[in-house]
């Protein structure tokens, strides 16, 4: 193969080889003098000519590839853009479907982790009427607990908007000295748990053992990846709750 370094030229302070010259020649970006020089070389150097043809052929194929695919958009974005009163309803993208699948998998993984610790058979994933009502109506607080039912106590921690348009709430549950932290999102009026992790739990009577970093990190990571804006302040949250979300 020809050693391109023998044909390295200085062009406005930049060292360019034959491939650079050919590329600029194809794009019509070479000055007149260098164009004439290169055209002369192309007449007498078959290898250089072959390289030019290869580049041009690849360009032609790339053009076909991208023009074919860009004509098949499949989504009516022009209509979305033209709408005067745009309410962003965020139609589902494949990215959001993949994220939802990943969330479901992480929920199962965390539940499995929690249940194998042997500390409790309580299933924190039970989204029953009591928990759903608490999520629907209770304001967030920094401390204190709200009696949920005979077994659980509840505290809502914060409310934030998700990138897909849903409202989500981080919350805590307490059961027999064990604490759980999770996030639930409101999906067309129904609260659905997204991720739950154990925080602290009782081991051997009064000895508390903090949860592994992985559990709480899962919750924090979910919020970090899902939230489209900062958490609501108390007044904004109260207004949202009063309006029925």
């Amino acid at each position, binding site marked *: 193969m020809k050693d391109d370094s023998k044909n390295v030229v200085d062009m406005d302070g930049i060292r360019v080889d034959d491939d650079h010259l*050919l590329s600029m020649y194809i794009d019509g970006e070479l000055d007149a003098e260098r164009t004439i020089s290169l055209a002369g070389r192309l007449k007498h150097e078959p290898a250089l000519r072959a390289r030019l043809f290869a580049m041009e052929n*690849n360009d032609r194929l790339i053009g076909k*590839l991208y023009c074919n695919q860009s004509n098949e958009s499949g989504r009516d974005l022009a209509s979305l853009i033209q709408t005067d009163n745009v309410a962003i309803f965020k139609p589902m993208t494949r*990215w959001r479907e993949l994220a939802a699948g990943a969330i479901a998998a992480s929920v199962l993984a965390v539940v499995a982790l929690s249940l194998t610790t042997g500390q409790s058979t309580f299933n924190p994933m039970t989204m029953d009427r009591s928990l759903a009502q608490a999520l629907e109506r209770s304001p967030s607080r920094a401390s204190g607990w709200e009696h949920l039912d005979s077994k659980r106590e509840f505290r809502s921690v914060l409310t934030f908007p998700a990138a897909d348009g849903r409202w989500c709430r981080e919350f805590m549950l307490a059961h027999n000295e064990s604490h759980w932290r999770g996030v639930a999102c409101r999906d067309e009026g129904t609260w659905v748990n997204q991720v739950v992790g154990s925080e602290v739990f009782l081991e051997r009577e009064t000895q508390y053992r903090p949860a592994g970093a992985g559990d709480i990190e899962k919750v924090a990571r979910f919020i970090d990846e899902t939230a489209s804006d900062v958490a609501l302040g108390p007044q904004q949250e109260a207004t949202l709750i009063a309006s029925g979300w």
Partner: protein
Amino acid sequence: MSSLTAQQRQSLIDELPRLKRFCLSLTSDPSDADDLLQVTVERLLEKGMPADAHVAKWSHRVCRNVWIDEIRSRDVRNRYAQSEGAVEGAGTTAENADESVQLDRVSAAMERLSPEQRAALVKIAVEGCSYAEAAAILEVPIGTIMSRVARARKALIEDLEWKAEREA
């Protein structure tokens, strides 16, 4: 920031085909390109742009930022393993050099370019931009465009030559 004006909306609609090709050059995957384009448009509609903004430049910048956010949150190694599998399939099934096979090979070779080289090459070779136009849209110096395009073409030739030799 104000929402889009009527003129900006029309300019954005006119820009959609070029923006779609830009998305494809960044992602090298048609499904990802569709998602990237949709999320980019959603963000532009939500956040708006300054009244004097250059719509093409602004939308390309937002698109790049959306893609950077996306690749930070996904498992890149899994996707790389998937694209490796696709490449192997394209290289071993071809018996002759008809155009559909050539398209597969070029497509796979394009995936192996860096997103920057791919985006620059698509702007020049597909959309017919001048180096100055591409430099303005992609917000890099003209010399960078020249270099990226040349290196992309060089890499494609050498990649495809190597594949042909391996199959011979």
